[in-house]
């Protein structure tokens, strides 16, 4: 069994480590510091923590201002508010002028659970992908969450970091370093390719095991870097296997699946099935119930792979 840990805790723990070595790093929050867990940073570095109250729009432009004055702000709130409520501030104060702001977005995806559709960011990757200049990193577990946070701090330019609410499996296979623009090849194979981003990595690995039992040679790729995306990894997968199944805890519109399809269609058109939220809003429930209900489990990934192999 896997150890379960929160990705947002990885964000918070990395911020504390970074605080010790980067004196101009500051953390902002918008009255959800106990949920994003930046309250841990606040406890150690109270003078470098700024609670903006329930004001996400103000927070993002304030962060841009601090970046212009030489600080490295990590602005933290839930994914829906970072990208929808404060979407303009993210676009025009941060992405467009390339402000050196890092957005720590927690409570992304359906596993946000009980709060329901209003709080489940299933479109934040789509929104942020469409903003030029913005780097998008989506970690698959606690350790990768720490890695992307540190990577963002040391990368000049705006970065969107995507975390969840729940505790997710900690997966040794993905613990090699995260490199912006690079995929992690977890397993080689030449029948079919499975590509995960974020916490879907555990479902993809499970699907890979199930396919292996059926004698199917499966390439497994994990993509913590959504933008820039590892085009080479996509093109070789398209060339060398029969097709690709993508899996993301996000809408199938505008996310990993469409990014992969966009690259493949240009270089080597192939069969691509996208696992994700199928253009519907979520609802209240427990994380795993909702993963089941909305078809985000390994069985769906296996079925999609089998459909491609039958074509």
């Amino acid at each position: 069994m896997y150890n379960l840990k929160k990705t947002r805790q990885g964000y918070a723990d990395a911020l504390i480590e970074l605080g010790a070595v980067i004196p101009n790093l500051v953390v902002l929050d918008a009255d959800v510091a106990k949920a994003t867990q930046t309250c841990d940073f606040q406890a150690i570095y109270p003078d470098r923590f700024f609670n903006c109250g329930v004001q996400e729009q103000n927070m993002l432009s304030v962060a841009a201002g601090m970046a212009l004055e030489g600080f490295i702000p990590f602005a933290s709130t839930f994914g829906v508010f970072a990208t929808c409520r404060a979407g303009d501030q993210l676009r025009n104060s941060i992405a467009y002028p390339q402000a050196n702001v890092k957005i720590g977005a927690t409570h992304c995806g359906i596993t946000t659970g009980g709060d329901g559709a209003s709080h489940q960011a299933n479109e934040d990757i789509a929104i942020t992908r469409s903003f030029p200049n913005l780097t998008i990193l989506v970690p698959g577990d606690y350790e990768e969450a720490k890695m992307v946070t540190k990577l963002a701090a040391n990368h000049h330019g705006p970065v969107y970091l995507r975390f969840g609410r729940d505790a997710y499996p900690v997966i040794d296979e993905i613990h090699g370093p995260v490199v912006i623009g690079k995929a992690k090849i977890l397993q080689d194979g030449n029948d079919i390719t499975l590509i995960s981003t974020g916490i879907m990595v555990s479902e993809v690995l499970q699907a890979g095991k199930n396919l292996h039992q059926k004698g199917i040679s499966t390439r497994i790729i994990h993509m913590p870097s959504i933008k820039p995306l590892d085009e080479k990894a996509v093109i070789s997968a398209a060339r060398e296997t029969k097709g690709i199944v993508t899996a993301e805890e996000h809408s199938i519109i505008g996310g990993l699946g469409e990014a992969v399809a966009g690259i493949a269609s240009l270089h080597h058109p192939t069969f691509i099935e996208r696992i994700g939220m199928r253009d519907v809003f979520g609802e209240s429930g427990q994380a795993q119930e909702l993963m089941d209900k909305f078809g985000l489990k390994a069985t769906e990934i296996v079925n999609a792979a089998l459909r491609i192999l039958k074509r």
Partner: protein
Amino acid sequence: MAEISTEEIAQLARKSVEIRRNILTMVFEANSGHIGGSLGSADLLVALYYHLMVHDPKNPAWKKRDRFILSKGHCTPVIYAVLADCGYFPQEDLQTFRRPGSHLQGHPFQPKTPGIEASTGTLGLGISTAAGMALAAKLKKENQYYYVLCGDGEIQEGQVWEAAMFANKYKLDNLIAIVDRNYLQTDGNSEDIMPLDPLAPKWESFGWQVHSIDGHDYGQIVAAVNRAKKASQPVVIIANTIKGKGVSFMENKVEWHGMPPVKEEFDAAMKELDHV
């Protein structure tokens, strides 16, 4: 002359105990939900739904009904408990709170739940929606009132003040906002997180009439709303409340903003509320 008799006040007080018990039960059973702000605003909703508002639970689409919009949308336990008790939907539905397939979502979803007038969840939406509805009612020459409940943390959102300007411009005297002034939000005391005081002058300078009251005193709630109805401008009632009101160990405690109780806490809380 009192605007509400002592007998009626006693009835409302009894009702509020039932509502508070249902709030606790829903959040305990769902093991998720917002207790503090629900308990704290229970008296306001009880006064509105059982005394002040003109509405018909058997006919939720009745055009002339007064509307209530929960802008602080996280406090669904209190509105669901009240709507169920009024008869908008069966009491048993409360057991499905926050479960897949339920019409009782974590945050209010207007298309699904009878009696829910507007979808909210992102703080700040509800007051603008209420202003739009109030403006529409004026265009249609209808006379019902639009009540909207905001949290004090919520009114830190810029959108709230955009709505405040808008309501003043269009003289929305059919709009009555209530600010649940409990001085608490998710991360702490509002004056530490993002100071709001002096609050009344802010609203006054935006062109609103302001009444400050004790939000647990039915006489004061009723008097303030009756005065608001006579105004020729939008009115805000700043209702000073105690977050977690009714359960001693939850009162004024920031921890109870969004934390469900464990069994012992639930039992202890229900014990404090057994005097119906």
